[in-house]
């Protein structure tokens, strides 16, 4: 598991390793690590064999590579629950474009990973499958077999981040609406990419906020991340918001001898928050010093509307949620109430089904969103929030225009909190703290990556984020790779394997 995807593929192609043994080992690890609760569904070995087929074609870029997929992507033949009772029995009859591209490239889908219900959360604590546990720092709580506490893995793609950080698979798909890929990547010490909006197809990704959702990629290294990115990016005629762009046909290269000399990097002053822990600030400064000493031009820049991002998001998110959740009525798929008194009328059936199917957080957002969309509130809330969103986008535009090529920021305000701390906060507080540094990239549709740097004094990963202009993934990978090489973060699986 310490090899890169490229190396593993070449071993499979040369015959020194078989896809089957690799996949079976991955399934064994997934079962062995069940206490992490990273998966909502694990394929049987038979399933995996079926996927591998007989004498699978060689020279595929991901030949035999086991991957995990967040449970809000549709994969034919597997459940897609979104961590919700509402879809506990939903088996989509089709496969999401990005998953299909992975499969076509030879990857093996191991299973589906846990998440906050419909992606509404930042801890992977709100799922019908129960919370997912961060593998980092877990040994502290291991003495007691009931595992009374643990560190949260972040979310909502916590299952995917844990699956990668625990060495169960080489890569996992997450999704990122306000930070849902980068946040768990940061807490779990893995690489997490939120690509440019429109570069990866959303077809088959069950939406949270359509105008901000993107499929995210979680891997152990920047190289692996770029390989997966190259495999799944591209225009999709099934997604009208996917874009035709020069980057589509191009393979993004990650050079081993990357240099950062001359690259203009901005440190947005507004990203300093009084709630940010000193170790996070220190880690951020260390990397800026590293880049500066390596020849990069590091300057402070200003994104004046950053602090409005969360408020803006807290209007736009519920509006789209209210709309997107309207289809879950139990008539065609998913949960339907069995209470006989609910069969009196369609309205009663809907009300009871939706009451039973959604958790408090989801129901709360539906209610809020519908309130914002009322005729008398639309201008006041929705339109106002859209204007703020425009201002946030313009902040970034201004910084790029002034010559800044990338932004360097923290990902989260602290290292991973413990579950017992985390659940003391309500869902809104959880989001406002967790999404602070990640949210604005989604508002503006920009690419961003979370890179693990080091462990804090209690042994939890700390990470930094790079944000770039639209379609600047290549530069992001280049600088990320430089940071990765310089900080030499030790993945946990290395320890596990030994």
């Amino acid at each position, binding site marked *: 598991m310490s090899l890169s995807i490229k190396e593993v593929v070449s071993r499979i192609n040369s015959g020194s390793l078989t896809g089957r043994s690799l996949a079976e080992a991955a399934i064994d690890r997934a079962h062995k690590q069940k206490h992490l609760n990273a998966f909502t569904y694990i394929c049987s070995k038979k399933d995996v064999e079926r996927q591998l087929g007989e004498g699978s074609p060689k020279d595929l870029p991901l030949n035999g590579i086991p991957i995990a997929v967040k449970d809000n992507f549709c994969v034919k033949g597997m459940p*897609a629950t979104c961590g919700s009772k509402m879809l506990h029995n939903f088996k989509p009859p089709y496969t999401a474009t990005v998953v299909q591209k992975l499969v076509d490239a030879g990857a093996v889908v191991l299973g589906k990973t846990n998440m906050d219900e419909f992606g509404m959360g930042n801890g992977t604590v709100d799922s019908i499958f129960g919370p997912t546990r961060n593998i980092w720092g877990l040994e502290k709580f291991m003495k007691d077999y009931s595992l009374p506490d643990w560190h949260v893995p972040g979310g909502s793609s916590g299952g995917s981040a844990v699956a990668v950080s625990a060495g169960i698979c080489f890569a996992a798909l997450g999704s990122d609406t306000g930070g849902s890929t980068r946040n768990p990547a940061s807490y779990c010490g893995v690489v997490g990419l939120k690509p440019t909006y429109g570069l990866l197809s959303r077809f088959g990704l069950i939406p949270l906020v359509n105008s901000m959702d993107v499929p995210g990629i979680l891997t152990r290294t920047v190289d692996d991340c770029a390989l997966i990115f190259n495999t799944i990016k591209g225009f999709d005629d099934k997604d009208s918001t996917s874009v035709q762009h020069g980057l589509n046909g191009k393979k993004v290269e990650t050079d081993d001898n990357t240099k950062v000399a001359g690259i203009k990097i901005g440190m947005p002053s507004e990203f300093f928050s009084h709630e940010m822990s000193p170790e996070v600030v220190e880690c951020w400064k260390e990397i800026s010093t590293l880049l500066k000493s390596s020849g990069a031009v590091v300057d402070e820049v200003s994104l004046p509307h950053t602090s409005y991002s969360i408020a803006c998001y807290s209007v736009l998110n519920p509006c789209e949620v209210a709309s997107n959740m309207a289809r879950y009525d139990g008539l065609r798929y998913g949960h339907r109430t069995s209470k006989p008194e609910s069969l009196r009328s369609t309205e009663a059936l809907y009300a009871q089904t939706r009451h039973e199917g959604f958790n408090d957080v989801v129901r709360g957002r539906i209610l809020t969103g519908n309130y914002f969309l009322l*005729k008398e509130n639309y201008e006041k809330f929705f339109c106002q929030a859209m204007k703020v969103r425009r201002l946030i986008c313009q902040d970034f535009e201004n910084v790029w225009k002034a010559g800044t090529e990338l932004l360097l920021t923290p990902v989260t305000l602290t290292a991973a909190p413990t579950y017992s701390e985390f659940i003391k906060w309500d869902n809104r507080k959880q989001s406002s703290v967790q999404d602070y540094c990640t949210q604005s990239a989604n508002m503006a549709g920009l690419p961003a990556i979370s890179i693990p740097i080091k462990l804090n004094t209690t042994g939890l990963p700390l990470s930094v984020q790079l944000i770039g202009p639209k379609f600047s993934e290549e530069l992001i990978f280049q600088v990320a790779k430089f940071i990765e090489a310089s900080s030499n973060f030790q993945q946990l699986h290395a320890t596990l394997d030994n």
Partner: protein
Amino acid sequence: MRLLQVLKQTPQIALGQFVRGQHYIRRKEGWESAIGLEVHAQIATKSKLFSPAPCNYGAPVNTQVALLDAATPGTLPVLNRKSVEAAVLTGLALSCRINPVSTFDRKHYFYADLPAGYQITQQRNPIASNGKLDFIVYTPSCHPAPYNHSCNIIQLQLEQDSGKSLHDEVDQRSLIDLNRAGIALMEIVFEPNLRDGEEASALIKELTLILQRIQTCDCKMEEGSLRVDANISVNRIGEPLGVRTEIKNLSSIRSIVNSIEYEVVRQIDVLEKGGEVINETRSFDSSRKETVPMRDKEMKQDYRFMPEPNLPPIRLLYEPNASSSSGPNILHVQRKMKELPEVTRNRLVKKYGIRMQSAIVIVSSPGLLEYFTAVMSFKNGESAVKVTNVLQGALMEILNINKIDYSQCPIKPKDVADIVSFLESSRINTAQSEIVLKKLLDDDARTPEQIIKEEGLEQISEDSEIEKMCLEVLKNNAKLVEGYKRNPSKFQKKILGTLDAAGKGKLNMKKASEIMLNLLKKD
């Protein structure tokens, strides 16, 4: 008379609250009514607005459904370009402003046959707006002369159709058919520029002709491909428009007229009795011929409109040389424009010298325009009035009896042209022409010339022969002759009728009546 009969069946409303004038139906003294229409026209495309599912009418339930049409999680809408082009063409035909950029909105309401819980529509920035439809109001039973009217169009928008709920009363359950869900609709919203049900029906008839001509909708109301909602209000003359009610889902010309006329009279009655008209949705019960409140939509809806985030704006090109792959182009669409019915009518009147009434019938009867044009080509463009008399008289009657339209008429246009020539030369009379037409319709392989000769259908025009017959009739009908002496105008008709019968329909009645009248005067 028809409308008065409607009112007789609804005893709570007094009769005679309106009378018909030459123009629109007059209301009870001091009142006027305003009617606005919203038309839903299914676009004649092979697949749905946002999904590749086919939309064949009458297909088995739930067989025309793509994943998107069932609102399967994770699916996304992809706009059907043909629908966009059809909407642009329709907008052009209706003199609309075509908006270079238009956007989609989600309109939310919970209903079992609306799978996503919202309908994708174009509430805020429609594809076309500010149009106008000119039409002729001509209902011979109601308006003796045609008159022109015009109705402004507020907007034309693209939107999805919903599915259908089927209520199984026996088992107390509802079943959903999603075949219709997601079919492309054009919603055309008209200003309340109409004054009565006949004007509304005339507008719909003209709209139907236009959409069928440009082939953007087949307008089969019986199949639901054209559906009409009517907004109705009444006010005292000089006062602003009153509170309106909306009648949903009118699916025939008849129900448009009947429901509007019922509703206007009902509203005036309510107001005169000191009551209030409530802004509500009503449906039309065509068997009882009255409008009734729709219970399930009584509550005021807030549709919580939101921009559709999964669809970028429609951007229309206006460049003559752009390639078709660069997107829908207004100028390319414009090339598909056909001659519109109004232009056709004026052309017919001007070119052939026929009456507007005839032109209206020619343009609005299926297949008649083509048939008329074919007959006229054999007549070198002459004798159009005579041709229309035959086509819209004897031939129409025969076709109606056989329940076929002009496009299915098996009689060759050349044969009809010949029959018209024979009529003109008085070789045959109208009655004889009908016999020839009937024989031709019954697959008689002979030419009209042969039929006339072989069946002895030629008209008797010889003066001496006619006079002989006249004298015989006078001799055998002394009572009629006596009657004529007392009351000429009353008995003249009877005597001529007897003469026609005696001649077995072969007499040239124009000549015969002259001769007969002369004989009677001599007496």
